[in-house]
């Protein structure tokens, strides 16, 4: 990526917003720490040391230790790996399915459109957490299962939005012109429809990463995510529930890690939305659509 491009990207991501700048920096820190977790974690996240059980936060253990004497700070660092990878992979999968279906539905119209849209309606009507839970139970437990479950639940609103966009674009003069000049269906889709959908897709995706991370945390909290002893943020909050009175730091710090990371993604996503869609169609509407999408995955 050339310098000019990088600068433009940064401008779109952060703009003049201090919050977005902070958010982007925080994301960068979390990503680096997750990638090089062994370098940053002071202890082995799985090492049990019963003599160091339930220690309060101190300089040696900044976030304290859990009932098995594992260092919570190190576990939070390793937990970032799961959260980030599920967040990105699930967004990728949901986008892939939603984008293809939306494009197909909007461009083909007719019976295909109706079929795809009924599938979308059914998916949206489903209690989404229960659907995600169902998928996680069917597939063998692990990180792949979690992101497949979330992707399968989360694609529907992408499909809807992309379909709407394609319907709009299809009527644009340049698309009509390309068609009357003899461009085939695929050519129009590739040269005109896909590129014009991309800004919306980028904004939607950036806003979606955070919700998928929240959903991953919720599944782990219920014991359905990546299985122990691998540290996950949601799982750690759950393990700490029994010790809420005697050692609140078990739950408090992992939860803070979730909240801050997701907040950063949301702030950057919101800024990106305002910067990309200035004068465009993505305003308060996306807030409503987004809420519809997330439904009670998070309640």
């Amino acid at each position, binding site marked *: 990526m050339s310098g000019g491009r990088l600068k433009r990207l940064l401008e779109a991501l952060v703009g003049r917003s201090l*919050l977005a700048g902070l958010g982007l920096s925080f994301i960068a820190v979390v990503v680096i720490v997750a990638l090089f977790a062994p370098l940053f974690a002071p202890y082995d996240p799985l090492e049990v040391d019963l003599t160091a059980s339930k220690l309060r936060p101190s300089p040696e253990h900044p976030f304290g230790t859990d009932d098995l004497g594992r260092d919570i700070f190190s576990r939070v660092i390793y937990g970032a790996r799961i959260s980030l990878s599920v967040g990105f992979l699930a967004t990728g999968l949901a986008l892939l399915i939603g984008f293809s279906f939306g494009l197909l539905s909007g461009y083909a119209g007719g019976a295909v459109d109706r079929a795809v849209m*009924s*599938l979308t*309606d*059914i998916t949206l*009507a*489903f*209690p989404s*957490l*229960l*659907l995600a*839970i*169902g*998928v996680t*139970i*069917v597939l063998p437990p692990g990180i792949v299962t979690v992101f497949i479950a979330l992707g399968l639940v989360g694609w529907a609103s992408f499909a809807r939005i992309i379909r709407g966009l394609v319907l709009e674009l299809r009527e644009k003069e340049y698309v009509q012109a390309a068609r009357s000049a003899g461009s085939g269906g695929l050519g129009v889709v590739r040269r005109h429809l896909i590129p014009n959908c991309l800004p919306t897709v980028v904004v939607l995706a950036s806003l979606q990463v*955070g919700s998928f991370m*929240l959903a991953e*945390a*919720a599944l782990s*909290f*219920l014991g359905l995510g990546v299985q122990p002893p691998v540290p996950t943020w*949601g799982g750690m*909050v*759950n393990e*700490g*529930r029994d010790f*809420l*009175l005697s050692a*609140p730091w078990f*739950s*408090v710090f992992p*939860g803070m890690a*979730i*909240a*801050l990371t*997701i*907040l950063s*993604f*949301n*702030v950057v996503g*919101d800024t990106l939305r305002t910067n990309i869609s200035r004068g465009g169609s993505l*305003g*308060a509407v996306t*807030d*409503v659509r987004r*809420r*519809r999408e997330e*439904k*009670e995955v*998070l*309640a």
Partner: protein
Amino acid sequence: MSRYVVHKLLLIIPTLIGVTVITFLLLKAIPGDPVYGMVGPRASPEVIEAMRKDLGLDRGIVVQYCRYLRLLLKGDLGNSYYTGYPVGKSIIEKFPNTLKLAAAAMLFAVTLGIVMGILASLNEGGVIDRAVTVVSASCISTPVFWFGLILILVFATYLKRLPPAGMGNGSIAYLILPAVTLGTRSAAYIARVTRSSMLEVLGEPYIRTARAKGLGEAKVVLKHALKCALIPIITLIGVDFGSYLNGAVLTETIFGWDGLGRFAINGIFKRDYPVVLGTVLFGSLMFILANLIVDFIYRWVNPRVRL
């Protein structure tokens, strides 16, 4: 309008059938047999076989599905594999609890969200506006289950003001923490949408007219602007309320609230097929209905989209 209503109502049926098909397939794909859980580890193969036959689990999946549909047409959701208690009855018993929690959460969310949104819009770019933006972004980013635990920690453990969990024979004190936990995300979304929608409306010419003819600021904002600005919020309320009626699994789990969400997830963990099918079907119906009602209200208050 009435044709539109009928058309929309008829569309519910295929959607619900789709929901049952997906749930059924998913349940059948779950590894493990519910019978083993029911009879215990030491049951003889004959007993297991008899039990499977008894429940109709020995038949093909299509036969099982048709049986279920036939039962559904009679208005029967089947009986729980474990307690033998009719699922429909359990749902009817637990629904009021879920409804109560949903209503309380929504009341909290709407009040807080609208007030925050109005304050922010009247102070565009100012301190209050920024504070509302940061607070609502934080609320949207905080995991519900963690927020609930923090509320328990602060209000039940440290301040000892409110009960940590349970339903306490329906006293209001037990409702507060779960309702706040569940409603906070909605409040944040409502605040954001109220803010942007108010800002849009406040720039309209008719507001300038209202001001020009000498109306007080309070009247302009609360009577003229708010009425129009609230329209998009209706959709938001519908979506959220609908999904709360699905059962708020996480909130109900944390607070030991005896609602549909907890009923459903216990059913899933125990492979109690009729319970899962029944709650998912009921939850989806509630979600669709809530959205439809909102859709109708939306059309009614907003003549621009009326057919």
